[in-house]
């Protein structure tokens, strides 16, 4: 049986656009709050979304974030057309980062993004192809919390 989609929205993310970085995630957080999603779920989704959004801005040319909400879960899918990740396992390890000094000056590049995304998701999938791009799929269950 198909799960009924109660809410869905797409966001464009522009690589290198540090000025607007985080705006999509702030909007997502407000949307989820308005939908009445439980606060702990909103918080986890916001963090997941922000780290994924920042990675597209820092490392990929452009990308798309897809938010969908059903009665039992929030799902965030981020697809980019960036350079891809050569060694996904290495990229997933805490502290690994290829961020530039400029990015670190903005407070990013601790190498905690992907591990933190995984930790805050109930289901986490990452597919990456060098020269093609990266796709992240994150699902956070609402555990019977009312929508």
């Amino acid at each position: 049986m198909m799960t009924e989609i109660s809410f869905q929205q797409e966001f464009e993310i522009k690589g290198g656009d540090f000025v607007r970085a985080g705006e999509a995630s702030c909007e997502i957080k407000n949307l989820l709050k308005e939908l009445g999603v439980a606060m702990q779920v909103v918080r986890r989704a916001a963090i997941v979304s922000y780290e994924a959004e920042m990675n597209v801005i820092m490392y990929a040319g452009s990308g798309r974030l897809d938010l969908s909400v059903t009665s039992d879960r929030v799902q965030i899918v981020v697809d980019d057309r960036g350079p891809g990740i050569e060694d996904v396992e290495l990229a997933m390890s805490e502290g690994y980062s290829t961020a530039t000094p400029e990015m670190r000056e903005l407070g990013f590049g601790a190498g905690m993004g992907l591990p933190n995304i995984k930790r805050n998701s109930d289901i986490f999938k990452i597919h990456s192809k060098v020269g093609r791009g990266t796709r992240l799929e994150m699902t956070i269950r609402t555990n019977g919390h009312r929508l």
Partner: protein
Amino acid sequence: MLTLKEVQSLLSGELLTPGINLEKECSKVFASDMMSDVLAFIDPESVLVTGLITSHVVRTACLADVSAIILVQGKRPEPMVVDEARVRNLPIISTACSMFEVCARISRSHPEAGR
């Protein structure tokens, strides 16, 4: 327990976002310039102490459910950044104290804040 208002006076801080309520409890404090660490480790409703003044600090604070931002060394962000904080109902307090001094003063009055 301290309120944000009491923290402000403890630090002789200036509220850059007038009109935003400071009669809230300051239960926890997290000091860092690394926004990724904030996102990974901060507890909800914490006060964020930082020397960074970009719009990303405001957005990170908002996304991580921070209750107030304290800027150290008398730092002042661009008016645009302050406006964004006001819109997001996030108080910003600027103090001449160093990051160490901010943490020391708060912890003297509220030893539990770091846990």
